[in-house]
């Protein structure tokens, strides 16, 4: 078990290092930030001074090492726009984003999983079809379309809710619904197929053939086993708590991390983009790691397989 955890940790670390490298390579090699920030007709001395100030005149590998060292020490650079620490800029946006994504996650789990389980247990019933149809729609209607339609109906036509911005809790209703509905649909669909898969297994049939009450079969055998694949997708949802609202935040002009990212990307604000990339990757990797460990706890077979071959 120790070895299993160690391998997973090593993999997670490698992934983080790769993200850092990726960010560096893509962002540094793509263009000369000095020319983007300064206007094209800026005097050469000013550009040179800018480069020197930001370490852009050093060889790339030196920039990389420096950059890496800084990150290890927790220094993620300063925004090229307003000179503040990137990490501060990003972290002060996190609460706003979580104010949307956490309630949305609650909706996804609270609606998606029970709906999926119910649909699986009442396969081919009217409810099942309803759940599945909604689920397919939830997947195919992109969040920005859903968001705009909601705005059109509830803000423009009915005037019940504000169409964007942040202020009262009423501002959060539409974005939270937009985020939650799509995820709930995906989760319902996934849970349903995981449940169906488990319900088709011989041990379920054996248990019910032995006369175990169906309720107990479901609770004791089906649910725990169906939980295993579902954990993965829930893990992904938890991992995207910070990054998952980019589009929705843009639709509703919500001042969260996602909006910051879009603006930073448009302005080529290297430090901020890198900071967000790292933050997102770190959440994602952490939650993947937790999922993997949970998997190990839920399914001892898998623990062995993974450690054994890694294939």
């Amino acid at each position, binding site marked *: 078990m120790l070895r299993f955890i160690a391998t997973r940790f090593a*993999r997670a670390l*490698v*992934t983080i290092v*790769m*993200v850092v490298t*990726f*960010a560096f390579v*893509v*962002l540094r090699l*793509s*263009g000369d930030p000095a020319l983007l920030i300064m206007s094209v007709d800026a005097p050469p001395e000013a550009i040179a001074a800018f480069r020197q100030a930001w370490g852009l005149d050093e060889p790339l590998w030196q920039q990389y090492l420096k950059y890496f060292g800084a990150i290890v020490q927790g220094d993620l650079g300063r925004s090229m726009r307003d000179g503040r620490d990137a990490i501060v800029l990003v972290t002060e946006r996190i609460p706003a984003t979580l104010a949307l994504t956490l309630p949305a996650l609650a909706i996804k789990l609270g609606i998606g999983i029970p709906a999926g389980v119910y649909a699986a247990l009442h396969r081919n019933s009217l409810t099942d079809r309803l759940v599945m149809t909604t689920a*397919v*729609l939830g*997947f*195919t*209607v*992109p*969040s*920005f*379309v859903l968001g*705009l*339609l909601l*705005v*059109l109906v509830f803000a*423009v036509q009915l005037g019940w809710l504000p*169409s964007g911005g942040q202020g009262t809790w009423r501002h959060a209703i539409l974005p939270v619904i937009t985020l939650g509905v799509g995820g709930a649909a995906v989760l319902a669909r996934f849970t349903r*197929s995981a449940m169906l898969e488990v319900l088709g297994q011989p041990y379920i049939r054996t248990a019910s053939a032995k006369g175990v009450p169906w309720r107990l079969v479901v609770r004791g055998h089906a649910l725990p086993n169906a939980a295993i694949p579902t954990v993965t997708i829930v893990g992904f949802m938890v991992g*995207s708590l910070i*990054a*998952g609202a*980019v*589009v929705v935040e*843009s*639709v509703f002009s919500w001042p969260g991390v996602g909006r910051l*990212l*879009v603006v930073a*990307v*448009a302005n*080529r604000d290297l430090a901020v*983009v890198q900071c*967000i*990339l790292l933050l*997102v*990757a770190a959440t*994602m*990797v952490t939650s*993947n790691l937790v999922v993997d460990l949970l998997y190990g706890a839920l399914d001892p077979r898998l623990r062995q397989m993974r450690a054994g071959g*890694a294939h």
Partner: protein
Amino acid sequence: MSDSVLPAAAVAAPPKPRTRLPPAVALGIAWIGLMLAVALLAEVISPYAYTALDLRNRLSPPVFMDGNWAHVLGTDELGRDVLSRLFFSIRMSLLIAFGATIIGAAFGTTMGFLAAHFRGVVEQAVLTLVDFSASLPFLILALAVLAFFGNSLMLFIVLLGFHAWERYARIARGLAISAGAQGYAAAVRQLGATPLRVYWRHILPNIASTLIISMTLAFPEVILLESGLSFLGLGVQPPATSLGNMLGYGREYLTRAPWILLAPAFTIILTTLAISLVGDWLRDRVDPTLR
């Protein structure tokens, strides 16, 4: 040398029994056919050029909202015909989605084959890349790359091509390993075939159905990604137009002219829905193991 005696026979699948199409799937196929026709015939069937301005008919509503028949789906702020723009947007979005899906499948399959063939270090490298792809939401990755490399259509398509590559890589690697361990691939290898021949003429045709289904499943995702990025203003750039691009533009006129936005919105929904339905149906019929 793959152009040899009987290349056609290599891909000819054994005939399958016919079954009746579920109505929803039939509708889906019909819709996809319609979209393809629109994309191919955009110039012919568009009433106007998609950039043509009609300054006397600005923000004219569609026919069903008491508009005039000159602009069936209405016009936008500059008096451009929404229907014509929609046709060209469909063409652009489908072009991007096709290009990106094919690139993704080709790249992913190649990586999967490389991993399966060389094993060892190469395989570990590919698997690490797969892990890396899984560790970042693709939208974030795409955002970073796009904005910093500037924006050209080719780059955009290639970038979207990397979406879901890891899925093809996983599938191709798994199937190639099981094919290579025993059976036909090993048999052909001992005939003296080069690895290229083994993978191209034997393994690829044998796993093609699985890959094609994965492509159908990934296709709507690419459409959504494209429209999402274009919506954020970071995808297809004006004067070119795409479904997401139209949406992003229409958003500004949400209160005054919702039709600008509604036409592409419903096109996106119906197209992704149709392809998902057909893809799911294909998967369930041909390869139920793919979930």
